[in-house]
């Protein structure tokens, strides 16, 4: 069984402005990208469960030009606010790294 980090060249999270958090999963090759994309492994439902949201507020975009899947969610707290844990939003991708890839 492969893990997501083994088939990607980059998994990252980052602010998309202070009110949104965006995740990029960039695959090493087209074949694995298409397999993971079509298996809907990285889905609005998975993000909703993991980041405690409703699936409706999760945006999942398949970006074929870069063999990448982009997911954007509302930020758990506004960047830098008293409740925030991660001003740049850069360390929120942890739960994705060891996802099992079919």
């Amino acid at each position, binding site marked *: 069984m492969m893990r997501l980090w083994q088939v990607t060249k*980059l998994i990252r999270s*980052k*602010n*998309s*402005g*202070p*009110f*949104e958090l*965006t995740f*990029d999963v*960039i695959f090493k090759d087209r074949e694995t990208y298409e397999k993971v994309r079509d298996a809907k492994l990285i889905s609005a439902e998975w993000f909703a469960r*993991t*980041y*405690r949201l409703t699936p409706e507020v999760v*945006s999942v*975009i398949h*970006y074929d*030009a*870069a*063999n*990448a899947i*982009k997911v*954007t969610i*509302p*930020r*758990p*707290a*506004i*960047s*830098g*606010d*008293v*409740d925030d*844990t*991660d*001003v*740049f939003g850069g*360390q*929120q991708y*942890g*739960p994705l790294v060891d996802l099992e890839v079919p």
Partner: protein
Amino acid sequence: MSEIRILSATGILGSGFREETLKRAMRLKPDFIGADSGSTDPGPHYLGSGDTLFSDSAYKRDLRLILLAARAAKIPAIIGSACTSGSDPQLERLVTIAREIAREEKLSFKLGMIHSEQNKNYLKRKLREGKVRPLANAPEFNEQVIDRSAHIVGMAGIEPFVEALEHGAEVVIAGRSSDTSIFSAIPVMRGLNPATVWHAAKILECGAACVVMRKYPDCMFATVRDDHFIVEPPNPEYRCDPASIASHNLYENSTPYELVEPSGVLNTFSAKYEAVSDRAVKVSGSTFKAAERYTIKLEGAELAGYQSIIIGSVRDPIILRQFDSWLAGLTRAAKDRITAVFGTGIEAKYRFDVRVFGRNATMGPLENETRIGHEVGLLFQVTADTQELATALIKSVSHIAVHYPVPEWTGLITSIAYPYSPSEIARGPCYRFNMNHVVEPESPLEMFGIEYEQV
């Protein structure tokens, strides 16, 4: 004008670039040099306080090399989002640095300064007229929010840059502006296809961020023609490939297919990325749709309070085995002590938070992992209306926490390792981003005052 050659000095002014790369890039005869100087990434502190992300020395080093190169080649230099947030005090700071450089290097030029700080009465009028609209996940916006804001800036499009350049400005330093406007103003002004231009600008705005492996900040170069642009790093150690250029559209953007600007939306859905060598990429095929209504995005920050914090760690396995109940008891005892010292009623005047490193400091309540390791880090945090109160309260926490007991040990224990004396650190004022809205101005220049100065 069949092509425009653009040099992006670095992703963010003050982070640096190689002097040698700039020299190489100047031999490619750019039509202008651009550099972004801002970001909301480091948080609300910079917009709220007027402080800057980098030191004056770092800004001066980068700006000196840019101004020397631009003046020697008699080409414009354009800097946007001065000193992190592009508020008036930050614009003034970068302009002061530019004046110093001019004096020291005996440079002379016409300087255009674009003000992005917003007038509160103007915004209230726009709000009443229904000309302010929320963007995604926007907090509530009303006149009180405007009043509470320490600074509010509008994100300029290309129009104020074009205006300044048409008035003969040779160096333009702007307050808050969209990163891409810095690079789009001249090519759009000279009539190139806006779709090609805005896409090139998106690739250029982060400097060398679009290369295959970015080891350090550096310059980037693009040649923009009407129907395509070619991007090639001027640093011979770097290379771009179609994947690295296509991937850059993902960065700090909620969709790789759209880039929203005041005057319209770039759509890269049908863009083609082709290698023209092992280090240069040709991009074509994007489209640009003009906006029905011209809008300017607002950014604002207000004071959220003052904080004092304590950093410590716990290593005792006995404490760690009952960590949650120990911390809950400690928190209760600390709050009781605060009430005992400051009287009932104090509860409403402060907020006490604990961040637990080694447990959930990164993801907070979203963390699913429950294991803890051989030690945990603790950050106690008090937020109050004044610095004096925040520090006074945390001093009570400090003593209670460091001796908080567990049943297994009899006698007085010292349960937390504090690395510092004093244990408490005053963090100063804390700010909060308080708007994510756009305004519809009557004209693209209405919200941006432009001043000129012969330096």
